[in-house]
């Protein structure tokens, strides 16, 4: 896969799995186009995503709809799938475990730190994807591979099935697409 495409894909998923934001919500259709083009996927998944866009035209309604799914999925709702790797990989079900520390150190060793504005934990799904986009963008393939193998994939293997199982619009489809792109299965 080309460097640019990889970067774009990572960015697109980072955008979706980070907290809902007006600009991402506005450009959701473009993300769907990108996925439809680059990821071998079923018509059904893309169709469901497009249905969502039709049901919630860009604007506040769409943002609120995304929040309505994001919060119970990741935040304080039913918390069906806490988006932090430590919760799964450290066995204690808590955040900021060893995995978070290792990921943070990885960022540091690559020359990145967490911005203070967003206030996010290092092992948030969206942040890890964003980091890979950065590496892909700068052509740091070795680092990207190493990070992907050690941190992203083990995380994706646990969290993506959970997100898919919730059947929440947008998120479960995005998880489905990310699964087929990163884990090579549908």
């Amino acid at each position: 896969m080309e460097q640019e495409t990889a970067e774009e894909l990572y960015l697109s998923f980072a955008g979706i799995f980070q907290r809902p934001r007006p600009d991402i919500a506005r450009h959701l259709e473009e993300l769907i186009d990108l996925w439809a083009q680059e990821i071998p996927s079923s018509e059904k998944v893309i169709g469901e995503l497009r249905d969502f866009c039709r049901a919630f035209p860009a604007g506040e309604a769409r943002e609120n709809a995304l929040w309505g799914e994001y919060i119970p999925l990741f935040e304080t709702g039913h918390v069906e799938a806490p988006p932090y790797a430590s919760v799964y990989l450290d066995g204690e079900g808590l955040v900021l475990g060893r995995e978070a520390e290792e990921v943070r150190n990885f960022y540091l060793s690559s020359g990145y730190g967490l911005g203070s504005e967003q206030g996010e934990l290092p092992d948030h799904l969206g942040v890890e994807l964003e980091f890979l986009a950065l590496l892909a963008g700068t052509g740091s393939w070795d680092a990207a591979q190493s990070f992907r193998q050690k941190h992203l994939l083990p995380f994706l293997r646990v969290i993506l099935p959970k997100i898919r199982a919730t059947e929440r619009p947008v998120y479960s489809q995005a998880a489905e697409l990310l699964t087929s792109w990163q884990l090579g299965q549908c």
Partner: protein
Amino acid sequence: MAKHYAMVIQLKKCLGCQACTVACKFENKVPDGQYRTKSPAIGPSGTYPHVKVFFEKQACQMCQDAPCVKVCPTTASHYNKDGLVLIDSHKCVGCKYCMTACPYDARFINKNTGTADKCTFCYDTRITKGEKPGCVSTCVGGALLFGDANDPQSEVARYLATHRTEVRKARFGTRPSVHYDYEGVK
């Protein structure tokens, strides 16, 4: 003279408050849903209004004739230089033979490591630093005494010399180092 660490549990002072249960979890990073020490309620017995209940702290009894050490196929379970039964997790394969042999149900397979796990009297984290085990130092009721039974001046040795205590399941001849004082509860 070699050390012989021992614990005395004065059941009448145990409030069943579970401070020890939780302290142990954090001191030893025990995975969720698993415990190195528990303090279940025994009873209530009797009939209204003449009722009794007490709590019995249960953990590894640090047997001097330990069935777990005897059966362990890899010598992972062993006596250390201070006479404690410990597990070398590098040698343990998780065959659970020790668990079938332990009459006190003190062992479990650690969800994170896959190896047998149990109370160590906080050997590495505390007692080698001259501190008392985590459960002892957080005991709200002051029910737990700990020290070197071979040192006649120790609190434990003096207590054992002056009180009638019992060991659990003495019929198995395991010679535990954890002594129970049932005075006032039975």
